[in-house]
């Protein structure tokens, strides 16, 4: 169980939060193609290394925030987009 730093609640067990997954851009539903939409739905980079992902502080302040996490080491650092 890793420790995830919530901007409001501080470092917390990851079981207090929910990993909402890698940050992906949502295509405009009005103009997107089905192929583009499905890659948004199902395709992720899933690198062995740094990934920008969203976490949800579900047992705490209810904030969605993004961090960068190294999937090989679980090292965590602030995300520019948080």
């Amino acid at each position: 169980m890793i420790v995830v730093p919530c901007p409001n609640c501080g470092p917390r067990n990851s079981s207090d939060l929910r990993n909402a997954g890698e940050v992906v851009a949502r295509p405009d539903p009005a103009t997107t193609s089905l192929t583009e939409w499905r890659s948004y739905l199902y395709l992720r980079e899933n690198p062995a290394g740094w990934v920008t992902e969203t976490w949800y502080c579900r047992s705490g302040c209810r904030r969605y925030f993004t961090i960068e996490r190294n999937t090989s080491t679980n090292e965590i650092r602030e995300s520019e987009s948080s």
Partner: protein
Amino acid sequence: MSSQRLPTRAGELIDRSTSLSFTWNGRSFSGHEGDTIASALAAAGVEVFSRGMKYHRRRGILTADHWDPNLSVQVGDEPNVRAGSRRLVDGMQVSAQNAWPSLRWDLGTANQLVGRFLSAGFYYKTFMRPQFLWHNLYQRILRKFAPGGRVHWKTGTHGDYDKRYAHPDVLVAGGGPAGMAAALSAAEAGASVMLVEQEPELGGHLRWGGPDDLTVLADLREALYSTPGIEVLCDSIVTGRYDHNWVAVMQRSHPVVPERLIKARVGSLVVAPGLVERPYVFAGNDIPGVMLAGAVRRLINLWAVKPGSRAVVLSANAEGDAAVADLESAGVAVIAVLDARAGEDIVQVRGRGRVASVQTGDGRTLKADLLVTATGWSAPTSLLNMAGDRPVYDKVAARYFPQSLPDNVLATGGIEGDGSTAELAAHGRETGALAAQRALRLRHERRTQTARSVRPESTPPASVPDNRIPLRRSPHPECYRSTTHGLVDYSEDISSKDLIQAAGEGFDSIELMKRYTTVTMGPGQGKLETVNAAAVLAEVRALDLADIGTTVWRPPFSPVSLGALAGRIFEPVRRSALQDWHEANGATNLLAGQWVRPDHYGDPMAEATNVRENVGLIDVTPLGKLDLRGPDVANLLNLVYVNRWQKLEVGRVRYGAMVTEDGVVSDDGVTGRLADDHYLMTTTSSGAGAVWEMLEDWLQTYRPDWEVHVTPVTGGLTSINVAGPRSRDLLERLVEDVDLSADAFPYFSVRTGTVSGVQDCIIWRIGFTGELSYEIHVPSGYSLHVWESLVSSGSDLGVAPFGIEAQRILRLEKGHYIVGQDTDGLSKAPTAGLGGLVKLDKADTIGLPELRAAFERTDLPVLVGLQPDDPTIVPEEACQIVAAGSNEILGRVTSSRMSPTLERSICLAQVDPSLASAGTSVTVKLVDGRRITATVQEHHAHVDPEGARQRV
């Protein structure tokens, strides 16, 4: 059998003033407080404790500690108890495992005669075919020979297990001299410390040492218990280290519960497990009477047990030399000491059930009943491996050492190097101080990361470099195998010959060899075996041991009982404010998610009929309720629902369905507009939490520019549905300031008013049951009053409560689908019949592209009303709908009930589109295999498809 108990020893753990009785295989024995099961039996002269797994040869004490592979016993109905460390308790019923029919007469010894079937890879070779033999022969017979104890099928629990969360700055794994010193200095530096020791008392190898060792131990123990900030947990094992120093401790010393799993978030982990003595591989090395030096030292010094009469000692180190001295002091005749440092060796041991003679490397045969080996150490590096380290073999010291550790994991003691007691303690002290320093920095960092009204002013503790003086590495001969073959893995009965054969068959990497032969896969998980196995492989491949590598050490470090992992369940239960009333009035409850709620009050069919004829009350508080406020609520609703929301007027409610981004129906409910910027959304009971999280997600991450506040009010508002043709009559008696007439308060409207004197109740007119009905959302503190008023005011109208079961009947009669029951994880909007609701020309809706794609498809299943042709048969929910002449699946029944209104069975079903038109006859396969026919209906609704009853 004669007593082997020695006169009093200086460091003995036993209390001779006590006498504990216990049985071993049905015979009565006694021992003392402080004895292990094994020491008490050995003191009484017992020499055979178990049988080998495959060849069923007799086994005696080998290591006399927690890792002894020969000392797994059954205690009462607890299997696999480690008799080498488990302390004796009065009244214990102990029996041997792995022996059938008895320890003395064991049929399995016949396996020795058919040894070729049991050699390397025998599982794979022998039991592959013929396959029919698996069930009939292999499985039944093998089970009799299978190692391990038994759990009786009537076994109860062994009491409540427990869990605990801890946050020590420093956790020290191992309570020997280095670990104790580390705990002390860490506490002195201001850290909170947890010291975990697997034996029931602190001290490690000091316990069986000489007078000087005992003095140091007494001093360290005294200091530990008098220094504040140290929690000492003995008889407890650190079983795993995970990311960010999440450490699992299995505590067996708890005064109340049998075991407690401690989940510790640790600042710094200090790994100080000492060393594990390694057995030597030679012919006969599993005959009782072959013991490690540590075993005889423990037996003599801790439990005052004489391990034999005539001993031969093979010594490669100081532990072996000390064992010689201990043996002599215990009155054991040491007839020969072979010095492995000088190249002396033993070749084999002979004896049946006990060592009788020892053959030495120089050709002598010595009569002896005890052979003691001191051939080296294995470093129990598991926790270091779990922290990412790959320990490296040092040829000179003949053992593995840590290579590189993360900053929050530090090693000390024997695992780091050699030294005198004072040197080990000094290294421990330095390590503890460093660990504390790093942990305190982390603590400060975490505190300042947390938002607070007042920021802590203190500056972080200074960063300290690692200036520890390393422990030296004393030279040690590489003693792994003699010139003969013997057991490498005592738990799995695997010999060096088996490993060589496996390598010959191509399984010549350590990981492959492990899986093929099962070496190191027994209960000890390789503590004693891994290095010897690697050494044999190195020998076959003519490589250096350093080039062989070892298998990966994974958690747990030591076996963990399932009870401890399960622990106690802390699942909260939710109750509406009316639940006490329900229970006082005959409700039979059901658990729906976290909610306890009435299933029925005795007769659900009658409850349903009462709703159709009179008026019923149901507590629907678990319905998810979200209070939405702000100028952009309509935009949010338009995004999350498939239909349109911009034009909902104040005072109106609307049904909405939600899909996820992949177009699958995810939730539905009714949302009403209470004021310009104020809405109340309802969700399914099971979806309340998920919808709330989903709304927050879209608002926070996608449209942070929208001004909407979402407040969950599920428990704050008690929801009461008043349903039935006389519901208006009932409410008119209690509602003060709302005109309830059909014209003033039409279907799908919402009003806020006073009910039975309670202000601000939200009343909306909707109908899940298909009858005229009102849903009242009452501030929960007043809801019992409102409920009781409804009950007492309506007795002449036939008012009666109804439960979930009646509601399910009523809604099925009405054909309302339930998300998650009549739909599933693949159901798109067309399946649920949402064609009329979905608006595909909106600019944005969750899942919009998938909705568009779904409505172009013609192959999606269709939800239909279905009636069995035999009206008395109610097909069970999830029964398959199959093709008439085969078992080809064409759908399934999603809901089914007997309808009290129609007095016939009714269903909803998902069917293949080819079967979806009204009047189609389909075949339903019942659970018992019978096939019945049923007819697809024109509507989902079986009762009142036009909706006349709810629009009055």
